[in-house]
């Protein structure tokens, strides 16, 4: 087990995020936006374990996100108010589902792995989309807030602030866990699998077991983030389970920088903030110049689509990779390469 060193920059960033709400421009609305940004940062980081470190592209992470969200929503709806109990249940539910998906999906490689995860996720989507007990296409609406501590009711602390710090703590824990994991023996075996699966197998590693392990860990990170989502949204809808959401998670990883853990967090935050700002202002600008406002609603997807295409073509290591490439940062020893760098 090699020791894990954390760069000081990471702590600076976390410290900055911790004092962020103190600034006057952080209104409740902006705090909620920051909550979403960090939450999807966790999702993208979880996916990066699979994509960047193991070379497996999952097109089914929406299912982990959505299952986490639905498990919290169902509990809140039925009167369970403890956030920790919700998270615990989500871990169990998402973990079990991930075991099943991982068991079948890891039998295949490459595109087939991506498609198997996609199809499993579609089953989950279809189930929630058409099951009236869980609200069908409307999802579960109008949830009450969760308690962080049993003694502190939800209303005692300003809610967006409380939510923001909860997700920040989770992000910190998730980051430390991922860093330790990727620097451990387990993480090195994952990189070995990415670089040359057959060789890893010939060296005596049970490749399938490692893949299943990382599938479950990746799913749990995403699932925990998902479980936290209804706490802010006060709802859970089947839209969270759409396969395009899985695609968006991949976009976040690619934009930020695959195989860097920090990059995907940046990518996730970038995606969410861009989405929010563009879809807020575009319809207004469209209306101001006399165009139909409903066209501006999807404009952020257009921008994101173009950015994704450009990044895949010209910056395959994402924003963080590009920054490192121009020498602003010394590369880590054994810096991970993008997914499946060699075949």
């Amino acid at each position: 087990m090699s020791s894990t060193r954390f760069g000081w920059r990471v702590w600076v960033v976390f410290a900055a995020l911790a004092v962020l709400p103190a600034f006057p421009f952080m209104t409740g609305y902006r705090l909620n936006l920051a909550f979403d940004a960090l939450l999807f940062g966790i999702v993208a980081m979880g996916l990066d374990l699979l994509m960047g470190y193991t070379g497996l592209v999952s097109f089914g992470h929406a299912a982990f996100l959505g299952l986490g969200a639905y498990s919290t929503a169902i509990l809140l709806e039925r009167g369970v108010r403890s956030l920790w109990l919700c998270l615990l249940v989500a871990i169990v539910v998402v973990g079990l589902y991930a075991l099943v998906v991982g068991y079948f999906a890891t039998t295949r490689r490459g595109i087939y792995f991506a498609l198997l995860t996609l199809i499993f996720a579609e089953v989950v989507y279809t189930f929630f989309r058409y099951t009236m007990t869980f609200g069908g296409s409307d999802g579960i609406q109008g949830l009450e807030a969760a308690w962080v501590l049993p003694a502190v009711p939800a209303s005692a602390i300003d809610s967006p602030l409380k939510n923001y710090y909860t997700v920040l703590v989770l992000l910190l824990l998730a980051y430390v866990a991922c860093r330790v994991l990727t620097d451990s023996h387990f993480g090195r075996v994952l990189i070995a699998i990415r670089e040359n699966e057959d060789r890893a197998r010939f060296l005596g590693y049970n490749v399938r077991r490692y893949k299943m392990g990382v599938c479950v860990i990746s799913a749990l990170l995403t699932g925990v983030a998902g479980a936290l989502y209804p706490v802010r949204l006060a709802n859970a809808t089947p839209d969270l389970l759409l396969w395009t959401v899985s695609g968006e998670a991949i976009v976040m990883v690619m934009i930020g920088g695959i195989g860097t853990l920090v990059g995907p967090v940046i990518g996730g935050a970038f995606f969410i903030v861009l989405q929010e700002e563009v879809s807020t202002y575009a319809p207004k600008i469209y209306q101001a110049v006399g165009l139909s406002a409903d066209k501006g609603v999807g404009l952020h997807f257009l921008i994101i689509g173009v950015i994704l295409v450009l990044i895949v073509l010209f910056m395959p290591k994402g924003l963080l990779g590009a920054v490192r490439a121009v020498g602003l940062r010394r590369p880590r020893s054994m810096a991970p390469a993008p997914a499946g760098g060699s075949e």
Partner: protein
Amino acid sequence: MDYVVAVLLPQMLHGLVFGAALGLLALGLTVIFGLLGVMNIAHGELFMLGAYFGIVVIALTQSFWVALVVAPVGVALVGALLEVFTLRPLYKREPLYGLILTFGLALTLREIVREVWGGDMRRILEPIAGSVPLLGMIYPKYRLFLLGASLLLLFGIWLFFTRTRAGIIVRAAVQDAEMLDGLGVDVPRVFTLTFAGSAALAALAGLLLAPIFTVVPTMGVEMILLAFIVVILGGMGSLGGSVLAALIIGEAQSLFSLWMNPQRVAIALFTIMILVLIVRPRGLFGREGVLE
């Protein structure tokens, strides 16, 4: 007997009509997969683009039939441009980059369409109105035309791949592009033309199905999953397999929906899919060693 004529037969015919059109869509997908190793997520958007180009041409010329020729040509051009400028630089890389890139292309195309035409549902009127008596039931003429046109196209594609030099070159490129290059064939041009051709097929399927469905920017997203299922069931890279699988899926979806609600139909199809991937990972007619 009444049940057969009044319920079962029309539903089976619906399934056949839909399956044949789905076959056109899946065929392009599987050829691209076999040839370029790219699972083209943007294929659904090319399908959608066919319908929108059709709307434009119909508005200009008042003729569905002109649109049926012009729209696929337009989409083929779009496809050729996409291949040359975005996919070509990726062939040297991991196939998964192709998957991610085409997701980006899909987003871009879909939102461009929304920017240009808006997100409202649109309709294309059936160019052939009315119904005819058929086997004791009344069946819409346009659906029969759709079935005939799809089958004719599928037959034409089969002729192309087996009887023409160009078709044989494409098949050779699917088998071994490097060898073909060594034999002096301009392989990049084969790639571009094939991609354009598959885009045209998707556009044709989109325009042909448009009078039955509604035209919205997200119509491709809904179809592409079904097309993926078809391609996997038929076996990646297998042309005949894709067509057969499309007919099976069309029939299955159509018949299942007689006895199940849409949720169960979808879950049943996905379950078939998962079982196929586990039991016969290469599908019905898949070749060994394709991207594994």
